[in-house]
C-alpha cells in the first residue's frame, strides 16, 4: 500500500522536527530512519495522523531518546550556532569600523589610511575616484578568527560532556 502525498507530508514534517531535536544523539539518522519505517507501517493500521499523534511532540520523543542514553551528550548544533554568532559579531564590528573609517576619510576630504592589527595591514582609501578597503592575511589573524569561533563553539557544545563516562549497566 503506497503512502498518500498528504500522509507523506505529515510524516516528513514530524520527522524533520524530530530529526532537528535529535541532532546531538549519536547516530541519530538511524533512529530517524527506523521511526520513518515504523510510522509508515503503523499508519497502514491506524492512519498517519493517529500514528503521528500517538508519538507525542517530536521534542518530547527526542528527549526520551536522549534521556535513555543515561548521560548528557555534547550539543554540537548549539555550539555551531554560538560560534557562528561570535564570528558574525566580529565580522560585523570589523565592517562597521571599516565603513566608519571610510566615512571619516571622506569627511576629511579623502585620502589613504593604513592600520595594523594582528600583523595584518589594512588599507582604507577614499577619494573622489575610488573607495575601498584591502587587507593582508596573517597567521595571527587566522588564529584569532579560529579562536573567536572555536571557544564559543566548545562552550556552547558543552564539549566536556564528550568525556562523560557511560553509566554502568542499569537494571532493565
Amino acid at each position, binding site marked *: *500500500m503506497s503512502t498518500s502525498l498528504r500522509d507523506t507530508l505529515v510524516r516528513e514534517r514530524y520527522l524533520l522536527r524530530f530529526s532537528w531535536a535529535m541532532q546531538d544523539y549519536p547516530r541519530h539518522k538511524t*533512529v530517524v530512519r*527506523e*521511526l520513518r*519505517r*515504523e510510522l*509508515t*507501517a*503503523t*499508519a*497502514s*493500521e*491506524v492512519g498517519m495522523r493517529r*500514528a503521528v499523534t*500517538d*508519538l*507525542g*511532540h517530536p521534542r*518530547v*520523543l527526542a528527549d*526520551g*531518546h536522549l*534521556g*535513555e*542514553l543515561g548521560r548528557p551528550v555534547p550539543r554540537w548544533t548549539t555550539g555551531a550556532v554560538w560560534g557562528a554568532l561570535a564570528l558574525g559579531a566580529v565580522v560585523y564590528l570589523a565592517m562597521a569600523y571599516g565603513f566608519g573609517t571610510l566615512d571619516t576619510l571622506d569627511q576629511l576630504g579623502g585620502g589613504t589610511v593604513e592600520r595594523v592589527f594582528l600583523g595584518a595591514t589594512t588599507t582604507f582609501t577614499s577619494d573622489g575616484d575610488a573607495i575601498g578597503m584591502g587587507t593582508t592575511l596573517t597567521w595571527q589573524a587566522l588564529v584569532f578568527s579560529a579562536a573567536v569561533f572555536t571557544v564559543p563553539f566548545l562552550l556552547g557544545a558543552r564539549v566536556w560532556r564528550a568525556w562523560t563516562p557511560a553509566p554502568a*549497566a542499569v*537494571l*532493565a
Partner: protein
Amino acid sequence: MDEPRDPQLLKGVLPMLVLALLTERESYGYELVTRLHEGGLDDLGAGTLYPVLNRLERDGQISSRLVASTSGPARKYYLPTDTGAQRLWSTARAWQQLAGTVDALLARATTKESS
C-alpha cells in the same frame, strides 16, 4: 476510580514490562503499545515506548528482525536475547522484593492513619 499515574513510576518498570511481554511472544512496536494498553497501561503513548525499545536493543537485551507485511511496509519484530531474559529474571525479583517492602511500609502507614 483509578488514581492518576505518576509517569516516573511507569518509567522505572517499563523496560521490565516490555521484556516480559516480548518473552510471551515477539511483537513490533505499535503492537507492544496495544498490548500494554490491554494490560492496563491505557495512557501509555507510543512515544514513551520507542526510546525504551531503542535502548534495550542498543544494550543487547532485545534483538529485532524485519518481517514483510501484506498490509504495508516490513515490520520490525523484537524478541528478548539471552541477556534480556536474564535481566528480566533479575529485575523481576528485585521488583518483587521492592514491592513487598513498599507494601509493608504503606500498610503500616495506612494502619496508623486509620487508628
